[in-house]
């Protein structure tokens, strides 16, 4: 029996979920640590095999397979309200392979990276990892907005749990909450948008929506508003300006988590969603322009902040924000294919960079790049792998980042978005500069200490090398199968020239010493000033939070304390006071009560005298003794 793609997709989905259930529900297993990790890794390996089979099969038999399995969910009178299932198309399959591959590598890497953790914590970590893999695959395979939203929130939850993995660190706990709330801000728009879309069209499913959109049969009131609200979800999840501020703080989580969730997979969910729902977004050209502008601006803004950051993980976080900006710009330029290709290649080489940075941090026991140096000679393989990732990110031929970035730039140029195009070109210069700044500071230069450091664990090293080889292979494939699109011939040269200019500047400033970094900063003082303070955006959000939310809370608190409680307190105080007064009536002396009875009777008599009609008062017959004399 041969399984069709959707059935295979269900298997791929079920494996991490089963692993999560096993680790999560069986307490002795969870607290045992290593066995739980082994189960999770084996399940992920199975899922990877399934995903690979799925895409191989669909390449072999490209037609004749049912792309979707759907079940009715939320039955209603007029047909089902929503359905769940899997929708397997080329995009979903490639994404599945990426998610399972990076998940597997990260889980293997974590085995060594978190070796010092106590077993119960390790079990918890792998439970979260399995849940994340399941949720991300569910999101990728969603056949409709509703299922996508459910898994969207689940990956958000996993992100929160894993950022706060070291929850006894206040900074990690705060970063987790911040990431959760900032992304929720965007998710509010997302859920409102899909509900409005459902109210207008009666379905959450992609297939009917896209079919209607393609033949121009989708007539919905306020459609631009709806799509803008849905886009807001992507703004939060994919860290677009102005909601990008959570991603750098998310680096408080363990480094493998940053590699998996905050670089390769979860943060790209927003880009994936926009690319997936592109037939709908395409109906609103002004929104596409907005997406492109916001994406390009995010890319440039994040790149400037990366240039002044000294924490190696935060540099990578800003570069992730910046690359997400590239992807979104491609979406906005009307080339979701280019965005998706950049998403895939970026997922691979950014995971490589993060995992390499993990080894670097492991080696130097610090995140500060200025306290590192000379690692390349000590660990040439690590340095080589990291260099491959850096070159890919900087967009140097023939690495995959070059090709996917060219596609993005060409798309933006062809869409005649000249200002976003210039911003993206400037970003590619900055990207090369800040990445090679890290490389020169951490891997070259002189070592700051000369202690003997242990070799990195074999698992971490092997994973990095595997990713480096994969990056090179992807680049080779892209170079061999490269088809020149409709991009002008000068574009690759311009972009390469900028990248090399960035590398040269970094070399001159941080390696050769031709240019003093301090003077460079002084020359660009205003940008330097703003970038070091993160453009005051964190302060703006914090201030807004304090002013609006805390202010409102204080008003509500005051009303509760003094108005609501006040009424109740007045009532109870009045009752107590009145009771205290009335208490004194009860003297306890019997004769006082008799006085009361007598007074009452007298009053009743007076009342009777005043109200009784006169006729009945004089109506008694006069009686004389013995008048009827029965006693005689």
């Amino acid at each position, binding site marked *: 029996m041969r399984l069709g793609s959707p059935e295979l997709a269900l298997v791929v989905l079920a494996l991490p979920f089963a692993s999560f259930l096993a680790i999560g529900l069986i307490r002795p297993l969870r607290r045992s640590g290593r066995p739980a990790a082994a189960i999770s890794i084996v399940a992920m390996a199975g899922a990877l095999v399934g995903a690979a089979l799925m895409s191989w099969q669909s390449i072999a038999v490209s037609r004749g397979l049912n792309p979707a399995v759907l079940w009715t969910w939320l039955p209603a009178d007029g047909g089902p309200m929503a359905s769940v299932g899997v929708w397997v198309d080329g995009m979903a399959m490639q994404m599945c392979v990426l998610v399972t591959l990076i998940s597997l590598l990260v889980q293997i890497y974590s085995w060594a990276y978190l070796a010092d953790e106590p077993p119960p914590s390790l079990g918890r970590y792998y439970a979260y990892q399995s849940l994340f893999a399941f949720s991300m695959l569910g999101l990728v395979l969603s056949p409709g907005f509703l299922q996508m939203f459910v898994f969207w929130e689940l990956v958000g939850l996993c992100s929160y749990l894993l950022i706060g993995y070291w929850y006894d660190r206040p900074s990690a706990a705060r970063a987790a909450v911040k990431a959760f709330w900032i992304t929720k801000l965007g998710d509010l728009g997302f859920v409102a948008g899909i509900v409005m879309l459902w109210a207008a069209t009666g379905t959450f499913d992609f297939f009917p929506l896209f079919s209607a959109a393609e033949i121009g049969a989708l007539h919905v009131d306020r459609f631009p508003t709806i799509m803008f609200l849905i886009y807001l979800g992507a703004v939060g999840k994919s860290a677009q300006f102005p909601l990008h501020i959570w991603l750098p703080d998310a680096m408080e989580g363990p480094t493998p988590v940053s590699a998996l969730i905050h670089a390769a997979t979860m943060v790209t969910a927003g880009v994936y969603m926009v690319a997936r729902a592109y037939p709908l977004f395409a109906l609103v050209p002004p929104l596409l322009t907005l997406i492109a502008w916001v994406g390009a601006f995010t890319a440039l803004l994040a790149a400037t902040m990366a240039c002044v950051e000294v924490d190696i993980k935060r540099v990578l976080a800003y570069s992730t924000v910046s690359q997400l900006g590239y992807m979104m710009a491609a979406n906005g330029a009307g080339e979701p294919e280019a965005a998706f290709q950049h998403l895939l290649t970026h997922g691979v080489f950014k995971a490589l960079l993060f995992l390499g940075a993990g080894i670097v941090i492991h080696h130097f026991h610090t995140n500060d790049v200025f306290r590192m140096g000379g690692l390349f000679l000590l660990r040439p393989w690590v340095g080589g792998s990291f260099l491959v990732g850096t070159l890919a990110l900087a967009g140097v031929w023939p690495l995959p980042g070059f090709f996917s970035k060219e596609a993005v730039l060409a798309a933006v140029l062809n869409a005649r978005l000249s200002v976003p195009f210039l911003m993206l070109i400037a970003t590619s210069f900055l990207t090369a500069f800040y990445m090679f700044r890290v490389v020169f500071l951490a891997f070259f230069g002189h070592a700051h200490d000369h202690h003997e450091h242990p070799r990195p664990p074999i698992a971490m090293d092997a994973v990095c090398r595997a990713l480096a080889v994969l990056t090179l292979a992807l680049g080779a494939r892209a170079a061999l199968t490269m088809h020149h699109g409709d991009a002008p011939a000068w574009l690759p040269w311009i972009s390469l020239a900028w990248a090399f200019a960035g590398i040269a500047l970094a070399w001159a400033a941080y390696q050769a010493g031709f240019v003093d970094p301090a003077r460079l900063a002084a020359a660009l003082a205003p940008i330097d000033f703003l970038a070091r303070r993160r453009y005051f955006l964190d302060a703006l959000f914090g201030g807004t939070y304090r002013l609006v939310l805390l202010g409102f809370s204080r008003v509500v608190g005051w009303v509760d304390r003094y108005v609501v409680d006040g009424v109740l307190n007045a009532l109870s105080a009045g009752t107590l006071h009145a009771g205290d007064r009335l*208490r004194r009536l009860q003297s*306890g002396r*019997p*004769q006082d009560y*008799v006085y009361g009875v*007598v007074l009452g009777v007298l009053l009743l008599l007076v009342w009777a005298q005043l109200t009784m009609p006169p006729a009945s008062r004089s109506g008694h017959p006069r009686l*004389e*003794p*013995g008048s*009827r004399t029965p006693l005689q």
Partner: protein
Amino acid sequence: MPLSAYLGLAALVFAIGLFGVLTRRNAVGILLGIELMLNAVNINLVAFSRFRADLGGLIFTLFTIAITVAEIAVGLAIVIVIFRVRRTIEADHLDLLRG
């Protein structure tokens, strides 16, 4: 003598009894006042019985006297018990129910 004379006498005895109940501080005196009030009622009953030529009043009076005796026995017993416990039968001091 007209009926009003009997009724007036009964009202007078009742008022004297009530005055005793209200002013005496001694519990036994209060019981005596109650006794007077009950007997004022008895006078009324007998007088109406006589003037209306109805035996019911007389029979009712017999019952009242019997019940009064029982009541006074119980009342005096209570007074004795109170005296044993509190060493006083002053009504002003028996204010356990004070709020």
